[in-house]
């Protein structure tokens, strides 16, 4: 049936894209010469066993193409190799560090989605009012406020000045807050989530507001009101669903870019997630980690895109699959 063929077509595009990006990164890394020599030059203290394991994993004695194919084969068996810096399997590192990233990012996206719908709808139904003006200017400012600068301001205010929230890390090093590991973890999440939420909400709100303003002006909204449906029902059942369709794309971008924006967020808050790991991996030329992370990041982007496409088909009947 239509939907199955459609998903298969998107899946093929997805695979092409993921492999394309991994080839790009792989050959970029190899462009600088023999990874082992560079590693030895950059990090003289590295142990011979590690070098040997890298050699083994990448089949460095073979041609570049064979090396890439062997890496791809390994990855398909979920074998990402061992990190040079941490000397741990990259696969399990991606899971443990990834969880830290995903928990703040997903929470922030969910909070901003709820906020953006509420604020966007409120502003759109009161177009040109003071509330609308306030929302618009805050969001416009928010779009230009660099995330890391906002993070710095949050740390200065809530950590250093008011002393409420911790400024770095995901867990307390000594005793957890009030003896509860969960509370302690949530406590550490507040500032990073605040920063991400503000940033996501600004753009999402602007998007939902302007879509809502357009939709509310359409005849079918007036027609629904003229049929006697209440204002709330018309706004939320008839207008919002239409206005939300274009916002879906941005939501997909947010999910997809989750790991793309992580390096900055996690550097600001010294957060032990994939972004932080990626930065250290690049600095220390930890090839297996760089390759593994790139794969995951591209996969996330592509899966998010696929899910949006599928969601469109279900929400918007006008979309034809062919």
């Amino acid at each position, binding site marked *: 049936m239509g939907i199955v063929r459609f998903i298969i077509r998107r899946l093929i595009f997805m695979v092409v*894209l993921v492999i*394309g*990006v991994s080839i*790009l*990164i792989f050959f*970029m*890394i190899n*462009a*600088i010469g023999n990874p082992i020599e*560079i590693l030895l030059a*950059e990090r003289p203290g590295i142990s011979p066993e590690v070098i040997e394991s890298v050699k083994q994993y990448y089949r460095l004695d073979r041609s570049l193409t064979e090396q890439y194919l062997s890496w791809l084969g390994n990855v398909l068996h979920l074998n990402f190799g061992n990190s040079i810096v941490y000397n741990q399997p990259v696969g399990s590192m991606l899971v443990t560090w990834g969880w830290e990233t995903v928990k703040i990012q997903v929470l922030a996206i969910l909070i901003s989605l709820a906020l953006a719908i509420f604020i966007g709808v409120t502003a759109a139904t009161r*177009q040109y009012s003071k509330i609308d003006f306030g929302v618009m200017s805050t969001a*416009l*400012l928010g*779009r*230009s*406020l*660099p995330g*890391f*600068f906002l993070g*710095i*301001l949050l*740390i*200065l205010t809530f950590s*250093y000045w008011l002393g409420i929230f911790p400024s770095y890390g995901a867990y307390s090093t000594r005793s957890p807050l009030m003896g509860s590991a969960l509370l302690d973890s949530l406590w550490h999440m507040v500032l990073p989530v605040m920063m991400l939420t503000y940033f996501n909400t600004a753009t999402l709100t602007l998007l939902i507001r302007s879509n809502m*303003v357009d939709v509310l002006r359409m005849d079918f909204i007036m027609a629904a009101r003229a049929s006697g449906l209440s204002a709330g029902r018309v706004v939320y059942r008839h207008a919002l669903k239409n206005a939300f369709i274009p916002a879906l794309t941005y939501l997909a971008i947010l999910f*997809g*870019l989750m*790991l*793309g*924006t992580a*390096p*900055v967020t996690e*550097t600001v808050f010294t957060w032990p997630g994939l972004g932080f790991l*990626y*930065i250290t991996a*690049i*600095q220390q*030329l930890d090839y297996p980690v*760089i390759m593994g*992370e*790139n794969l995951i*990041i*591209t996969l996330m*982007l*592509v899966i998010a*895109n696929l899910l949006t496409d599928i969601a469109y088909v279900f929400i918007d009947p006008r979309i034809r699959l062919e």
Partner: protein
Amino acid sequence: MTAAEQPSTRKPPPKHHGTRRLGMWVLGWQRFRRNKTGLLGLVLVGIVFLVALFCPLLAPYDPNDQSAMLEFRSKAPPSWKNPLGTDRMGYDVASRVIYGAPTALVVGLGSMAVAAVIGIILGGFSGYIGGMADEFLMRFTEFFLVVPIFIVILVMVRIFGIVVVGTPLEEIPYLNLSTIILILGVFGWPPIARMARAEFLRLKEMEFVEAARCIGVGRAGIIFRHILPNALPSLIVIIALGIGGSILMEAMISFLGFGDPKAISWGQLLSFNYEFLKIAPWASIAPGMAIFLTVLGFNLLADGLTDAFNPRLKE
């Protein structure tokens, strides 16, 4: 169809081109002038340009002057002597921030110049020729739009830094910064290409282009004298947004420690002073503020320009 161009399409004779194009810009400026946020953006961008031009006059100290260190006045709070304080190495924060302005502008304008050339050629070609070429170029653009650019750029900047060691390239001043500018440009063209394609597609069907074709104007003449000038307003908007975006990107790359250590850039200052945020917050706030206001300026300017040249898009 923008309202700015509607009158022009009704006056097809190409000999009126001069006045017609002028009319579009004058009309745009008249609308822009009434837009408060757009004007605020223009003022902010103007300030950045002025600061960049006159930084030796404006900066109280040489940006490499570390004399405060000798007087044991590093990490000193703002005072009459150092209006924005000093940082951990005894540099005067105000002077460093002022000298960051030219760097930011070079990054923004330089990378967007590269991106604009690639984007306008690819997008314009795609939109004007159409057919298979269009299909192929649009797939190519889509690929670049989906690739996690920031992540790839970080790897590229780092690797390039290693590749050049020991080669004659190493002698080039600000090599690292130039690389970043080039990479930002090479990865920044897809939005410009998309806009150029849409504009070329739209404009090539318009009557005045048809008229020019009828009186025998060549392909190059049509593209450069008839289509491109009319596509410029939309392209300028997207380029203005791109300049702000590039400045922000460079700031993030530098903040993460992959910037040019020799260049004085705001991101670099943040990265350099961030560890001492608790002791000397002014040294981080000042460059952060500079980035914010500059990016805000370009974004507001782009908004104002959209309103001025595409009034139909805005309520």
